[in-house]
């Protein structure tokens, strides 16, 4: 009798908790390895239970979001300052952009409170042993580990790029699950880390696509896709176009992987045609022209900077043009002489920050922004509250320079 009762109680408990932890993980969750480890494991367990993972697995690299004071605010700043006192990351950990470029922050009307809080956040991450990369394109500025390596990327475009193009495996992590992974070196074994079984194939039907088209395709895919999608009908794509597609997808939904091909015959098929493209365009394009131009969301890599320099030969912008890239790229570009060329053409070059969620563009000063980024457009519109004029890079160069 007691035996039966005990078995039934145990079976109820098993049903409540799917995730199985090792003895060491259990001990951390109980607080036997300190409060911060306990908190980190609570985050991993909550995330794992919510995404139906059955265990935690080791990861080799974490990429953190939650860096920009504009997004994490005082609560985030205080939290990071408090945990950084006695926490160090366990694996290679890199960092998303922050709110400004310290080299030229005085040119933008940011108040001192913003600057000091942002520097405190920067300092907290550095204290924890995080590489201060301030970049949303870790896949372009760091060496890619070997095929199939498990990582934990919180930046959505980077997670999608890692899964789709770099043969890495990551969940679409939140700022907190990625931070917990950095501290513990582990992550829940959720569906994106296992077999791919998309139930949907998107057929690309738009002719002569440019990076804006691919951004809109990604945005559409993120809306209709669940965890991963097949995508067919793509031709050769350059880096700018691949990044645009990943950025678009990360903005609109929870989907975090493209598989290239038709998929199984039982997959549902959806066309991305001129009509669907127009719908996305109408949702995000709210102005005929912009007061300033932004390039880089995701940030530009060296290849895109070099291409931009080529396009701007003998031309200059008629209005302000902000160009966002990682610091390492800005330094390389300076050595090659690209930054001189871009500044001559009227560009403001900013490292460590990004179009996306920038505090450097305020609706008090600007009505509308021209950009070729779908991701940038979404956040400029919804977070900065400015109108957006969408144009491809070649169109921007044609219309906005002389």
């Amino acid at each position, binding site marked *: 009798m007691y035996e039966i009762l005990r078995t039934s109680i145990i079976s109820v408990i098993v049903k409540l908790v799917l995730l199985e932890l090792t003895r060491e993980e259990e001990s951390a969750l109980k607080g036997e390895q300190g409060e911060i480890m306990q908190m980190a494991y*609570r*985050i991993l*367990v*909550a995330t794992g239970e*919510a995404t139906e993972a059955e265990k935690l697995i080791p990861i080799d690299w974490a990429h953190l979001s939650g860096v920009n004071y504009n*997004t*994490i605010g005082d609560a985030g700043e205080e939290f990071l300052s408090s945990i950084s006192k006695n926490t160090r990351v366990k694996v290679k950990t890199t960092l998303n952009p922050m709110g400004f470029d310290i080299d030229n922050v005085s040119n933008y009307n940011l108040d001192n409170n913003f600057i000091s809080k942002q520097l405190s956040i920067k300092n907290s991450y550095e204290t924890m042993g995080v590489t201060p990369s301030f970049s949303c394109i870790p896949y372009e500025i760091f060496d890619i580990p070997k095929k199939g390596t498990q990582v934990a990327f919180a930046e959505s475009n980077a997670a999608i790029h890692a899964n789709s193009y770099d043969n890495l495996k990551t969940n679409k992590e*939140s*700022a907190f699950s990625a931070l917990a992974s950095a501290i513990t070196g582990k992550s829940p074994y959720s569906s994106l880390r296992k077999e791919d079984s998309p139930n949907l194939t998107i057929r690309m039907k738009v002719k002569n696509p440019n990076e804006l088209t691919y951004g809109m395709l990604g945005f559409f895919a993120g809306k209709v896709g669940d965890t991963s999608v097949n995508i067919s009908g793509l031709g050769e794509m350059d880096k700018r176009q691949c990044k645009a597609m990943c950025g678009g997808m990360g903005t609109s939904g929870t989907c975090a992987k493209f598989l290239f091909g038709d998929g199984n015959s039982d997959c549902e098929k959806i066309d991305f045609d001129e009509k669907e493209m127009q719908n996305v365009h109408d949702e995000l394009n709210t102005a005929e022209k912009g007061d300033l131009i932004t390039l880089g969301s995701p940030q530009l890599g060296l290849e895109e900077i070099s291409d931009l320099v080529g396009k701007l030969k003998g031309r200059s912008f008629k209005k302000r043009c902000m160009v966002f890239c990682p610091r390492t790229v800005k330094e390389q570009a300076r050595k090659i002489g690209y930054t001189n060329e871009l500044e001559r053409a009227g560009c403001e070059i900013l490292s460590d920050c990004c179009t996306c969620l920038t505090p450097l563009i305020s609706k008090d000063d600007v009505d509308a922004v021209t950009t070729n980024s779908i991701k940038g457009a979404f956040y400029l519109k919804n977070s900065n509250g400015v109108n957006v004029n969408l144009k491809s890079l070649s169109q921007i160069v044609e219309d906005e320079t002389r």
Partner: protein
Amino acid sequence: MKILVQGKTEGIILKSQNPINFLGTVDKKTGIISDKNHELFDKSIKNSILVFPSGVGSSVGAYTIYSIKSNNTAPLAMICHKADLTVATGCALANIPLVIVDNEKFTSLKTGQKISIDTKSPNPIILL
């Protein structure tokens, strides 16, 4: 039923049929819902057992949950119908018990009821 964050507490239910966007909807100092369009407008979630369908909006909302806990204005526990990562990681960060329940259980929970929560018990939610 699914346990996302473990814990033990008892208190009075405050229920909302609307999802909650913690970033920008909750006053961090007082725990009062400040969104005029929200069903719980002007009500304080402090020390309640907050029952709502799910969290929505930016994942940064998790830091808001951490803030209200630091300011002693957080709920004692949360019960949702759907798991979302903002509330899950927010409650984990702040150590607030979080339970996900099915539709039937969700419907049966009403504002004003006194309940106890013990996630280690075979019957984690008990009406008092």
